[in-house]
């Protein structure tokens, strides 16, 4: 395939810091907002970086997820999983599955869960406060919190974390470039859930998995494979990002100590602080799940042809100065904005309200239980798991 000399190679060079996107994105947003790019396999597509354009790609049905299945930029674990799941569908197929689960994740339903989450946060942090310092926050707080919340909601035994977490990690990675390893992890999760679903069929419970089984068995609203994929998709999506986002929130807050101080003094700022952190924090460096155009579309004066692979940088869009004044500054008093941290459109994060609530309670709990909290090692000694699509810490030693 021919490429122009000025075609940009993806992935972009990694960002020099944990706290800002790679500087090239700002230049692209200003000068080449819809840039022709080359993917690692040599095929070409487009990278979109402005807020309004990224939002349009996410919402406008002319940018199809279903048509992107198996395309370039689809070799990560999450993209392989997406291809076989709700994440790889367009409306109305997508809607058939989304409708089955949307009710469990509305703002109203999530509020009903809040007291339980607050109690869980208190229990985890009381345990941490009694431990010798430093304590690994990943092992004792940021991972178990979302794992237990999604397990309870779905009806998965949380003590099985040691069974499913490694498979989940593999799926959230590039598996060292070996898709077979990702498919093996998916197979293991499917087998695990096959057994859980059989158990639930025999002994129904008051949980989301039981409700989904009823939707299959009583109303034939989804296939058995869709049932299994939906369950393990919810399990993975329900904890990997939230766990790592708790870590990244804390790292970012402690990197801007005046903002951390401000929050410590005014915990009533937590809800808007969570929105600002969702906008600001660099959870992942990737470009989201690719779309493919179903017809020619004009974006920022560029005509993208039909059948083109389009990727978008939420990190770039969230730093768009035309929408967020002084966008590279973390400002926890910023008015609540419609950031793209949860995406937008039909695939807008199903668990956004749940994640918001967990992140709010996690921050409030850390401020309440561990005043003076700080990271026990310098940034240079932080170890991230390699090849993950989100920044995933192996451990986060903290003291206070």
């Amino acid at each position, binding site marked *: 395939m021919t490429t122009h000399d000025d075609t940009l190679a993806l992935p972009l060079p990694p960002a020099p810091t944990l706290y800002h996107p790679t500087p090239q994105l700002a230049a692209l947003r200003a000068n080449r907002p819809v840039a022709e790019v080359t993917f690692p396999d040599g095929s070409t597509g487009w990278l979109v970086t402005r807020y309004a354009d990224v939002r349009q790609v996410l919402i406008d049905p002319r940018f199809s997820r279903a048509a992107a299945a198996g395309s370039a930029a689809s070799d990560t674990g999450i993209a392989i999983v997406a291809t076989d799941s709700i994440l790889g569908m367009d409306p109305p197929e997508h*809607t058939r599955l989304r409708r089955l689960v949307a009710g469990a994740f509305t703002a109203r339903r999530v509020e009903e869960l809040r007291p339980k989450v607050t109690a869980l946060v208190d229990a985890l942090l009381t345990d941490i406060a009694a431990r010798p310092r430093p304590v690994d926050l990943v092992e004792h707080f940021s991972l178990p919190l979302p794992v237990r919340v999604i397990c309870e909601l779905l009806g998965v035994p949380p003590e099985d974390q040691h069974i499913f977490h490694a498979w989940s990690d593999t799926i959230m990675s590039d598996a060292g470039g070996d898709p077979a390893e990702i498919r093996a992890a998916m197979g293991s999760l499917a087998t695990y859930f096959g057994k859980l679903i059989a158990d639930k069929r025999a002994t129904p419970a008051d949980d989301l998995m039981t409700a989904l089984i009823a939707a299959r068995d009583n109303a034939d609203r989804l296939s058995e494979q869709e049932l299994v994929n939906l369950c393990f998709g919810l399990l993975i999506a329900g904890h990997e990002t939230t766990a790592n986002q708790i870590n990244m929130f804390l790292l970012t807050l402690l990197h801007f100590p005046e903002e951390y101080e401000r929050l410590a003094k005014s915990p009533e700022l937590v809800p808007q602080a969570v929105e600002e952190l969702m906008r600001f924090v660099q959870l992942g460096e990737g470009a989201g799940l690719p779309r493919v155009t179903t017809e020619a579309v004009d974006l920022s004066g560029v005509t993208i042809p039909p059948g083109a692979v389009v990727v978008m940088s939420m990190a770039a869009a969230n730093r768009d100065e035309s929408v967020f004044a002084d966008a590279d500054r973390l400002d926890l008093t910023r008015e609540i904005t*419609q950031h793209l941290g949860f995406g937008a459109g039909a695939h807008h994060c199903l668990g956004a309200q749940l994640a918001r609530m967990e992140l709010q309670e996690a921050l409030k709990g850390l401020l309440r239980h561990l005043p003076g909290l700080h990271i026990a090692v310098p940034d240079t000694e932080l170890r991230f798991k390699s090849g993950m699509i989100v920044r995933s810490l192996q451990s986060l030693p903290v003291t206070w």
Partner: protein
Amino acid sequence: MWNVEVSSACIGSGVCAGTAPHHFAIGPDNRSRPVATPLEPHEAILDAAVSCPMEAITVTDAATGAPVEASL
């Protein structure tokens, strides 16, 4: 015909506009609105209402004012 309303609870997630693009659009304020109201009844409108994370969409029968509920 159905009357379709999007309440102030809307956070502009775009779920409705992505799910039912012929019935909902995002305005310049980044919030959703029905493309018109009343609208010709269509299942996609109820899909969007059920999928809204904020439960911000209400659908009522334009003639009777009775709420139109999605079948589950």
